[in-house]
């Protein structure tokens, strides 16, 4: 089995895995980072979203072969990577229902905010419309992203 190196939440890892194994399962089953969620495996729900820099991406669609040598941020590392404002806004807006889709939402929302764009409804739709929530937390997600953007502006 080939060996791959990658960095997750600032920590370098070396994993042995088939080259076609999606990053999702590397994180969950090999590195024990279960905060990244499996929802569909085909890029249609975004529950598995992780960040690479300021970009959000589906970890179920990225093979370890392609992920090798790169650096990713998962929900476990979000607070340390400056994402605590988003987390705080999420708690204040009482967003989560079952919570399963929320790690992916938080990573996408934090990436959106860090990109520095204007946070309005159109920007939120563009960043989060591929994120599915069966519980229907959407109204509060919209509110929380706006609140997080305010918190971040206030912190500057």
């Amino acid at each position, binding site marked *: *089995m080939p060996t791959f190196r990658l960095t997750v939440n600032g920590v370098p890892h070396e994993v042995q*895995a*088939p080259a*076609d*194994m*999606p990053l999702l*399962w590397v994180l*969950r*089953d*090999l590195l*024990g980072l*279960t*905060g*990244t*969620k*499996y*929802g*569909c*495996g*085909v890029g*249609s*729900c975004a*529950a598995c979203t992780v960040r690479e820099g300021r970009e959000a991406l589906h970890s179920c669609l990225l093979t370890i072969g392609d992920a090798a040598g790169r650096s990713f941020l*998962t*929900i*476990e590392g*979000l*607070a340390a990577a400056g994402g605590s404002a988003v*987390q705080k806004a*999420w*708690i*204040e807006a*009482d*967003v*989560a*229902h*079952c*919570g*399963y*889709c*929320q*790690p992916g939402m*938080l990573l996408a929302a934090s990436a959106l905010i860090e990109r520095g764009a204007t946070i309005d409804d159109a920007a*939120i*739709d563009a960043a*989060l*419309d*591929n*994120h*599915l*929530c*069966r*519980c*229907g*937390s*959407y*109204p*509060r*997600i*919209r509110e929380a992203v706006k609140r997080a953007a305010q918190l971040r502006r206030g912190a500057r």
Partner: protein
Amino acid sequence: MNPSRREFLKLGAAAAGGLLLELAVDGTLRAEVAFAARSESVDAFRPFAWLAIEPSGRTLITIGRVEMGQGTRTSLPMLVAEELDADWSLVEVETAMPGPDFQDMRTSGSWSVGGRYGPLRQMGARARAMLVAAAAARWGVSPDDCVTEPGRVRHPPSGRSLGYGALAPDAARIPVPPEAALKQPAQFRLIGHPVARRDAPRIVNGSAGYGLDVRVPGMRFASIERCSVTGGRLRTLDDSAARHVPGVRDVVRVGEAVAVVGDHTWAALAGRRALRTTWDEGTVASFDSRAFRLRLAEASNGRGSLGRSVGDADAALAQAARRLEALYEYPFFVHAPLEPMNAVAHVRDGRCDLWLGTQAPNWAQEDVARRLAIDPAKVQVHVQLLGGGFGRRLGVEHAIEAAELSRAIAAPVQVVWTREDDMRHGFFQPAAAHRMSAGLDGSGRIASWRHCEASSAQNFRDRIDPHDPDLAAIHMWGGVDNPYTYPAMRAEFVLVEAPIPLGPWRAVFAPSNVMARECFLDEIAHATGKDPVTLRLDLLAAGEGADPRHEATRSRLAAVIRLVAEKAGWGRALPSGRGLGIAAHVYDGETTLAQIAEVSVAKGALRVHRFVCAIDCGPVVNPLGLAAQVESAVVWGLSQTLGGEITFRNGRIEQTGFGDYPILRLSETPTIETYTIAGAPRPLGAGEQPVAPVAAAALNAVFAATGKRIRRLPVASGDLG
């Protein structure tokens, strides 16, 4: 009920010198409660929650209901903590394990809060009284001169105070009072106030543990190939290629399915793809949902099992000056929670540990014990957070699969269903045809109302007897208990068996029946030139009727209709292509609901802008939680209205995932407003209830916007022209 059993039992030793109280609930009666001594036989009792106060002050509340996003881990402890006057920051909540002390943890039917409002408060109040008594005894003062503040007993005349933790050992030696006074609502610190979800901090940092996140040392991962057709049998299996996939450990036949076991999920999935199987598909392979839809429509013309009859609806229809008829159709749906089904099992030494998110922990325990032929006491169910429930997680077949597989490979194993498995191998909301008929008199008043539903019997766990005399009442939620007054009405149910698994779903049969009823009422309103709100209020004007099951809530229904009309600005002028639609419902004779949708249709594209919801579910325990449930229900109902449906061809489900079974997205979600009336004297259910009117409100709004009457869910792209 035996009063001697209405006692708390203290198990001071078990709580490390603290105070431990136990509450039992007789689950056979919705709100009937027994306080059972733990040392007694508890066969007739179903313990619900324990409260433990440790000398450190840590207050542990163990909840015998599961958390699936509906907020029980917040709302239920609030009830105990309120009357206890607990320091909420010191309250810890844990989910119970099924067993002798928690004999029915089933979480369904929207009655977690409603059924526990009195008992859990009473438990907190009695504990508080014991803590006060302990403090008074220590200070040599009268308990009447003592007060409590969160987490402390105070004696204002002397200025002394002690924390609950310090008092717990003494309190544990005090006899439990048979009754304690409850607070007046004005004294509430928690109930009725917005309280944030307890699990939020763990959810936002990724540490919240769902079933799929369970990791046990030495654990393997498994994916299971099943026949695409219900009831199919494995004919041939060639697993030679699968066994050569890197990371695959084993291929194991589990019943009529084939499990591929790997070192990680990916190996199991890759190995599964390499299996070569052939199947005897059996008789269900001829099932086709398009043909079935026609059968339902045809059957709805016939006579069925009578659910309710007032006057002679047939004669009144025959004599009517004008007749209206419409066919409403409802497809198959599947729950599709974001977390696919999964379970971890570890069978060893004649026992089994199970880790999963389930709405029915006791069923998981019993069914696994039966399959393994061991005592249920040997099956320990470690309940995890549920990544969505919606009725789907009342099914525990994945737990049985995991247990069988763990036994076969002699190792702990996690069975992971894929999204496609989840779409195709669950159970479904039954499709239905509703034949609606109304006879109008010369002045346009409804003289006769007939509602005939053709649908299939739910066959989840216990198959419903097709000859059950209550067949109509069992299935026609909202059809039989139609809240309006008609001179003559008839509700009947024609059984058309479907050979596929059919089971519970959020609001069960109400969305189907209420969609037909509330849309048809809208049709009558428009056909007779009446305002849809006024028509409903007219049909409720008679007030409470003699039939307590169907007619006891008319005033409370009228009240929410008036409130929602006011809040939504019913009757205001709207631009062309925009419309308001109303629907209302009394859920199971209790919670009353009215909703108004505001939609627009432009170039064939439907957009739902706003949903205004009024609900009377009695006093609200947590306003944040209630609004969340209403928002959730509107999104759920709009997914039924605008999203996907399940179709069968050659016995196979055609949908594979969210690509071909779309659910509502953020950009499609309207603003949702929730308004409450506390008309009912005690809290009633609110988790499923608000789903019922959603589709009808939206479809009625589409008619108001476009003049197009849509009579089938979900709305198809061609419906809007």
